């Protein structure tokens, strides 16, 4: 029974992994349409991707939008998280639910809402419009990440700093912020990725000049016109792989380093 479960688990792991890795050989394929195994190999589609403004512009658009979203999200969510984690006040539960709500509403619902709303305020198909919408959608995850970090923060560190002569402001700057730094980075990263990957809302509210990468990919897959999609997929997959593997390796290495010390 146990062995069967473990065996099944290994099979499922293959099911999880295989589709991720298949995009890599596809990107080096000479095939014009979807074909696997590839009929031949080349790197022509990589050259095509990097030289085609129809791909590079949306990529840069998405990077810029995601960067703005991650900064804006952290700036908005940080004070709110301190309020919710460190203070008791009437109405806290409602505020908490409101902050989580963007995660509960299906994106297609918000897509229509943003389409109508941004048209009304004349921000449809503009960068600010996309940034504002993506920021709202990024709030819950950033809040979850940051509040988990803040709850795990040992407040005696702040008391220690005060007892050592640091003013409340200096305590925040020299102790609270540096210790919570990984939490801010993680929250910003979540916001960045959520914006960079967000497809549905962007399909409805981005325009020709503000096209995002997911929108471009969506159109490309839908029309099956462009094999460059395999290149984009591979690059995105490799970026994710680096993002996931690097911290794991870094942790393993630093553990070994500290163990090596006497």
């Amino acid at each position, binding site marked *: 029974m146990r062995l069967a479960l473990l065996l099944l688990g290994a099979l499922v792991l293959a099911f999880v992994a295989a589709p991720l890795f298949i995009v890599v050989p596809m990107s080096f394929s000479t095939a014009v349409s979807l074909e696997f195994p590839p009929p031949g190999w080349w790197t022509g589609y990589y050259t095509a991707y990097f030289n085609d403004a129809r791909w590079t512009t949306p990529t840069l658009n998405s990077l810029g939008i995601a960067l703005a979203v991650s900064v804006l999200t952290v700036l908005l969510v940080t004070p709110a998280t301190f309020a919710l984690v460190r203070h008791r006040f009437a109405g806290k539960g409602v505020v908490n639910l409101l902050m989580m709500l963007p995660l*509960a509403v299906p994106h297609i619902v918000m897509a229509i809402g943003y389409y109508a709303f941004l048209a009304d305020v004349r921000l449809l198909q503009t960068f600010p419009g996309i940034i504002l919408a993506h920021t709202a959608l990024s709030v819950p*995850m950033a809040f979850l990440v940051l509040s988990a970090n803040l709850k795990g923060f040992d407040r005696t560190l702040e008391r220690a700093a005060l007892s050592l002569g640091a003013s409340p402001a200096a305590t925040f700057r020299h102790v609270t912020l540096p210790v919570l730094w990984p939490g801010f980075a993680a929250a910003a990263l979540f916001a960045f990725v959520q914006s960079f990957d967000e497809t549905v809302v962007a399909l409805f509210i981005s325009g020709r000049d503000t096209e995002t990468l997911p929108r471009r990919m969506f159109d490309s897959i839908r029309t099956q016109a462009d094999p460059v999609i395999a290149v984009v997929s591979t690059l995105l997959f490799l970026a994710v792989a680096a993002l*996931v593997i690097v911290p794991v390796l870094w942790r393993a290495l630093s553990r070994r380093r500290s163990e090596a010390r006497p």
Partner: protein
Amino acid sequence: MSATTAAAGGGSLRPWLLLAPLLVFLAAFFLVPLAQVAVMSVSDPEWGLEHYVAIATDGFHLRVLLDTFITALTVSLCCLVLGFPLAYAMAAAPQGLAAAMMVVVTMSFWTSFLVRTYAWMVLLGNRGPIARFVEWMGFASPELLFTRFSSTVAMTHILLPYMVLSLYGVLKRIEPALPRSAASLGATPAGVIRHVVLPLAAPGIANGLTLVFVLCLGFYVTPILIGSPREQMVAGVIGQQVEEFLAFGEASAMAMLLLASTLVILGLYHRRFGLDRLWG
């Protein structure tokens, strides 16, 4: 003195000052657009409940809703059936192996829906590995893509990491002595899983099912790209109403129904387990 007298209590203005920027932002750029959907559902093109009446009576919309629920249920159960052995293996594996498995799952989790959808187009395409294998065996190449099957498989794959991470969270916390002591008390291996592991994992199962079901209900990208054009899901129909017919009222009414279904399910979860644990 901020850091020292934080838990001052009810009358304090300080938390509200800290919350103000975000609350104003969410009100303006989240609640207002959301409210606009509700308003459009009863006001576009003219005021009235006609869209809701139409949805309830014309058969097509109810059919779509039902199809969507069935698909979401299928995907959720598939995720559970596949996710449990994987999470179980991860929890049982030695540390290094478990970390490697975790890397694969989180990689899938973070990879764009579009990339994973594209991968399934390759896998299930009529010149893909599965079709070729079937042909090599001497059978006629099956039509896999653009069917309910292809979108169900892809959505299962895409949502599986949510289930696995939920289950792993609870399975990892089960005290290793518990299954051992159950075995020492005479439980068979199957009995250990049925009477000890599964009940202790129940919150994680509920968590995973809720997450997957809710995400699947509102799924737009994957069903549109590789699903059957004849058997659409709610989100796809909503998008189509807006994109092709500019029928904002009808789309909004459908959107409100989708939102309501989602909130009802999340509300049920909230009453039983507390919503803040869902995405923990």
